[in-house]
């Protein structure tokens, strides 16, 4: 019983900052600065939302959608193929390649930004959504998760299939892919959310307003201190942006969570 209560308390604590942010987005400058904060806004206002939506460009929605979809496809593809290769094959340089693929987390990524910017300029994709997405789809965490997931398929199954004469492609098709839904969903969630919140890089690459995604466009609007409306309640407007971006994320998550949490634990159980 105590355990259940503790868990519930944990739930409250974990959701509280988010709740405050959502509530704050509905308040004007006095409400949002109030101490202690109201758990429910006394004078809810939609002004923050009208301000940010008023300055929102419809193209931002499409840009964000494009970025998310592209990121998901690429990152899931790369992570799964690399993770699978790491899990079930032995080959020369395996250790070296593993370290290389994970090395990205060992250097402060922000120092890589300037050379990366030069690289995408050389590749001709600077200023485009491709340039914003490509450098960010290699995810060490994703590869790692894919690897441990695919490791749960016993080697024996693979071996016997190979002994039976099945080609690698056959193995992929009939053994690996069918059970991959959980990891794919998990990586999709990971990659999708990551691409939505990758602020600094996207801001750097996508400078034309027409090409910007939601987060960048909205944050720039909120930080535009020459605009008297934006200057009035920066905290509230910031919270509105955050809340606004949160809703789609949480909805997607609520639907997919069943698949992937079940998946990782379910597959590991097998």
């Amino acid at each position, binding site marked *: 019983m105590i*355990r*259940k209560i503790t*868990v519930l308390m*944990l*739930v409250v604590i*974990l959701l509280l*900052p*988010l709740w*405050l*942010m959502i509530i*704050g987005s509905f308040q004007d400058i006095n409400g949002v600065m109030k*101490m202690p904060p109201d758990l429910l806004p006394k004078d809810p206002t939609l002004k923050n939302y009208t301000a940010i939506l008023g300055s929102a460009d419809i193209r931002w929605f499409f840009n964000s959608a494009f970025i998310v979809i592209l990121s998901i496809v690429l990152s899931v*593809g*790369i992570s799964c*193929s*690399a993770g*699978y*290769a790491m899990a079930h*094959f*032995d*080959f020369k340089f395996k250790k070296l*390649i593993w*370290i*290389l*693929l994970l*090395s*990205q*987390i*060992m*250097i*402060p990524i*922000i*120092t*890589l930004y300037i*050379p990366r910017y030069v*690289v995408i300029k050389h590749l001709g994709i600077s200023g485009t959504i491709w340039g914003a997405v*490509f*450098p960010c789809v*290699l995810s060490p965490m994703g590869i790692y*998760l894919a690897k*441990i997931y695919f490791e749960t398929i016993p080697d024996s199954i693979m071996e016997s299939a190979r002994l039976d004469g099945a080609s*690698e492609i056959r193995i992929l098709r009939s053994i690996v892919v069918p059970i991959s839904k959980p990891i794919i969903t998990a990586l999709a*969630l990971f990659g999708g959310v990551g691409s939505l*919140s990758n*602020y*600094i890089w996207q801001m750097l690459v996508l400078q034309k307003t027409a090409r910007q995604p939601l*987060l960048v466009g909205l*944050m720039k609007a909120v930080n535009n201190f020459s605009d008297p409306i934006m200057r009035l309640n920066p*905290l509230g407007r*910031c*919270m509105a942006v*955050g809340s606004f*971006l*949160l809703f789609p*994320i949480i909805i997607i*998550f609520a639907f997919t969570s*069943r698949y992937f949490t079940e998946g*990782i*634990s379910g597959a*590991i159980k097998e």
Partner: protein
Amino acid sequence: MSNKRAAYILLIPGLVFFLLFVGWPLIEVVRLSFFKINFINDKFVGLKNYLKIFSDKTFYTALLNNVFYMVLYTAGVCIVSLSTCFLVFNLPKKWHDLTRFVVYVPVISSGVILSQTWKYIFHINGPINWIIAKLGIKPVAFFQSGVTGIPTISAILTFQIFGIYVIILLANMLSIDKQIFDAAKIDGASNGQINRFIILPLMKKQLGMMILLNVIGSFGVVETVLLLAPYEHTATVTYHIYQTAFVIGKYGYGAAQAILLFIFIIGLTLVKNRVSKEEA
């Protein structure tokens, strides 16, 4: 062998992206670390940037801070995620799903935006200080000094990331054969003993990886620190590199520090690999 060929083919996308967007930039960073850069007229200075690090007091301060982060953050994540797992482990499945959902919410929330909320929560007139005041203690300026700032930021970071580890560890825990527990219970073991002596050892590999990832991660934290507490006593090494390269404007010097950090972390990883190999 078709086996190996298949592996190489599978790795092509990953390696191509790596070469283009990690490898090539990395080599550039190494190259630039031998220059004094202002992007207008760059001057070759050889090893001067590296030598400068050894006499740079602010770098050592950041390094020292980072050691604290390393310990607090890693311990924090491990303890909190493990505790949560143990907490929910024996409860019915419904609770598992609820927990997994709830702990993952902070992970998927955008750090940039949430930082503003954190700033507000820990503000001198914010909710936490309000609670503290009610308890009769003087309000604390959480981000004002290193003593309070580093634990606070570690706590925030733990909060934002431990969900991932809960999910991984919980999955691991649940995959342990139930029969082992039944046997232990018959032998009269308490829950606590089961946790300590059976579950933990079985998860050693995952725990080791988690610790390594967190140690590395503690060096890389920059966004949160940036937005919350722009004071030197809470700086991590990465934050210091950012300041050096982009705010003070010494990109070459910052690059040298980054490369040094990189070498250090690779060293750490190799050491960890050697240790776990010996244990296995």
